[in-house]
């Protein structure tokens, strides 16, 4: 440990300083610069957030600080100074010494960051041991309990797959902070979690780091979250720091065009903006994409009544218990409007979507599409029904066949349903690509050559190929970056007004709901706990659960000055 004398003076030395940092990846096509001229300082005990979209170099910059660049990455210029010591080209031995004990890390995805074959306790214990701390069972339990894991002593004997996402993230936070590092790198620590869990975890992380005096380098794509949690925000774009400064100042007075765009489209901030504007007496409709008037709402295209789904869970000795995933859910979708079903993972919202699509049979209840109950349809009628209701799924990486080019992907539903001739089908595909604002030259490309946003546009084009009346979007934008998310939401809104589509929007992200939905139905543990128009639900949430969900939107605690709002 090197000791600086700086703490005695009024201006302490920075804990971490990146000077002119450049990071290069060597690929088969030569060197690719990933980060250029990155400047950054973190003072002891301070929280600094790096904000940017995926590929902006924000994670790479942070990982470079603890020597965790991928094998083909290297620091090509500049220096990394930790606590007065230049560690840019420190030996492997020195870096291993620093890791854990001086610089901790909380990674992004709790599902993939714990080794599935070792018990949680083991993974905590080896951290303590490697950094020379006492590592008895009571020490392990203490560390886990600090991170807010209930019943830590017995939980330590469980495997990661027996933990929920939130509990896993708590275990990872416990590991990251177990050796009392002076700096914690938190790489999107909650983006894979439900909003309410996200809030709890971030609050806990805040409290812990404050108590321990740990500095935090928070990496996130959500500007609202960054502004709420950090003292200082650094915006990265295409490998460069484009703007840096105190959080609120950056929100109220963004100078770089990219930051301005980020501020304009961050869902959490947009949602706040609507709320602030409403206080000022502006109607939501004026701020949002065109929305239908109340009179059209009488024509109900989908009516769901007492929909129930019971799964049998296999137990030992051939027994099985019933698990009610969806419990007597009733709602309806008016033609040409958007209804959002909101809930956390495990609330049953995706099961509802699958049943409405006819992909999963209902245990009881009815789903009427244009007055016809689809739960009783035969094979032939079901086939025709599928033409009229189309899905868009969450993961544009997984939902497009990698062996099909874009033309074949979009044309397939037309061919399956025997629509038109080869010639008219090609014309239709061109039209569809045009509608989703993709060049028709893209037809011959394959999904792996496209970005996430482009893929999701292809998925939308494919869904629209059969001129459906209803489109079911199952978390259709949650895998996308904020800016792309905003573009896709706008596209969906445009298509709705153009084609008169009705949307069933399944999501966990209330900020997105506020931007696109006319009606909201909130689900909790299989039951529908609240529903109403978006304004009603957002302004006067009646159940505690909805209130908790609303409070958990990142940035909810921000007091935005009127000029931003």
């Amino acid at each position, binding site marked *: 440990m090197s000791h600086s004398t700086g703490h005695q003076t009024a201006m302490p030395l920075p804990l971490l300083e990146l000077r002119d940092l450049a990071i290069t990846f060597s690929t088969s096509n030569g060197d690719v610069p990933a980060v250029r001229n990155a400047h950054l300082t973190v003072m002891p005990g301070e929280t600094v957030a790096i904000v940017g979209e995926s590929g902006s170099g924000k994670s790479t910059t942070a990982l470079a600080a603890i020597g965790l660049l991928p094998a083909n990455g290297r620091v090509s210029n500049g220096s990394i100074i930790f606590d007065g010591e230049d560690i840019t080209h420190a030996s492997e031995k020195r870096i291993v010494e620093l890791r854990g004990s001086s610089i901790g*890390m909380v990674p992004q995805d709790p599902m993939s960051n714990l080794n599935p074959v070792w018990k949680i306790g083991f993974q905590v214990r080896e951290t303590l041991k490697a950094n020379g701390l006492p590592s008895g069972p009571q020490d392990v339990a203490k560390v886990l309990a600090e991170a807010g894991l209930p019943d830590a002593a017995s939980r330590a004997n469980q495997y990661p797959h027996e933990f929920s996402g939130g509990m896993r993230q708590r275990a990872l936070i416990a*590991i990251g902070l177990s050796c009392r590092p002076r700096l914690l790198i938190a790489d999107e620590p909650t983006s894979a979690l439900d909003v309410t869990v996200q809030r709890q975890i971030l609050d806990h992380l805040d409290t812990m780091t404050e108590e321990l005096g740990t500095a935090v380098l928070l990496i996130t794509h959500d500007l609202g979250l960054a502004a709420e949690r950090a003292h200082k925000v650094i915006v990265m774009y295409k490998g460069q720091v484009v703007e840096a400064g105190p959080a609120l100042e950056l929100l109220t007075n963004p100078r770089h065009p990219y930051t301005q765009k980020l501020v304009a489209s961050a869902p959490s901030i947009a949602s706040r903006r609507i709320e602030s504007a409403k206080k000022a007496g502006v109607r939501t409709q004026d701020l949002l994409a065109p929305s239908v008037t109340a009179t059209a709402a009488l024509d109900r295209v989908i009516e769901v009544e007492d929909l129930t789904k019971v799964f049998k869970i296999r137990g030992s000795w051939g027994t099985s218990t019933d698990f009610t995933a969806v419990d007597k859910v009733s709602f309806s979708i008016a033609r040409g409007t958007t209804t959002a079903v909101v809930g956390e993972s495990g609330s049953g919202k995706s099961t509802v979507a699958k049943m409405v699509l006819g992909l999963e049979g209902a245990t009881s209840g009815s789903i009427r599409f244009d007055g016809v109950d689809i739960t009783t349809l035969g094979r032939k009628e079901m086939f025709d029904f599928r033409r009229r209701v189309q899905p868009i799924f969450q993961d544009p990486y997984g939902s497009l066949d990698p062996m099909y080019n874009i033309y074949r992907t979009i044309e397939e539903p037309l061919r399956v349903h025997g629509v038109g001739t080869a010639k008219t089908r090609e014309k239709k595909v061109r039209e569809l690509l045009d509608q989703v604002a993709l060049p028709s030259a893209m037809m011959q490309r394959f999904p792996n050559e496209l970005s996430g946003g482009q893929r999701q546009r292809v998925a939308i084009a494919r869904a629209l190929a059969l001129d459906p009346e209803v489109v079911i979007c199952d978390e259709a934008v949650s895998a996308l970056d904020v800016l792309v998310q905003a573009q896709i939401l706008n596209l969906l809104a445009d298509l709705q007004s153009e084609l008169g589509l009705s949307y069933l929007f399944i999501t966990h992200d209330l900020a997105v709901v506020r931007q696109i939905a006319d009606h909201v139905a909130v689900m909790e543990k299989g039951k529908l706990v609240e529903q109403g128009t978006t304004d009603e639900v957002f302004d006067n949430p009646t159940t505690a659960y909805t209130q908790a969900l609303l409070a958990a939107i990142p940035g909810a605690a921000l007091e935005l000055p009127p000029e931003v709002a």
Partner: protein
Amino acid sequence: MVWYIVRRFLQLIPVFLGATLLVYFLVFSLPGDATAAICGERGCTPAVVAGLREQYNLDQPFWIQYLLYLKGVLTFDLGTNFSGRPIATIIAEVFPTTAKLAIMALVIEAVFGIVFGLIAGLRKGKIFDSSVLVLSLIVIAVPIFVLGFLMQFLIGVKLQWTNPTVSGDATFTELLLPAVVLGLVSFAYVLRLTRTSIIENVNADYVRTATAKGLSRRRVVVVHVLRNSLIPVVTFLGADLGALMGGAIVTEGIFNVNGVGNTLYRAVLNGDGPMVVSIVTFLILIFCLANLLVDLLYAWLDPRIRYA
């Protein structure tokens, strides 16, 4: 878990019945008179032939023959072969040699395959990796009888490091060369499987997290990369153990090992029906047990897998 094991043992019953029925039927349908094989070229008197037919139930229809055989198996009496020796005694005599050879081959392929695969995987694209990949491809491509004769000639005959063939005692040193030949092909597969698996795991998020925790490189590799990578390898090794226990007809033939493979080969040549059916049934049971062992090992290695 207990219930799962019991169920797996119960599943052995239909497998056993089906396998014996099939093999019995195949042997029954072989052309030629079975007694001719016993009597040899000089032939027997009709009275002796009739006696033999009655002794081995050859005068009965297929179903009766099969049921009589089953009855024998269930009372632990595998009967005698055409030379009049109890089949159970013969199996007890030759199986230990085969088991010894199989375990030696398995240890060789596992140790060398995993070590080489680990190094190759960690140094992906480097010279070591490329050379072992090419070598393993050659080993896979060359038929085992070529490899066997080649090594027998080079090491046993030219260099005279070991005996070119195995005596009746089948000592450890004598079995070493055939075990290497037997293990070579599987060694190449184990190496490639380990390598692929290591490459997949070394970039896993939890490996990066383990590094960030401050663990040494060595510990990260052994505890977090290797153990996770061994799961598919163990599956392969277990299945291979079953196959090796069944005797390697070619290898045992080349090195004159008095094992199960060689015995089965001679029984097939002699048209010795009872012997063939008994050995094959025995091998099927061994194979099923090896598979059960793999499944249990699998659950032990990967706690996410639970049997109910």
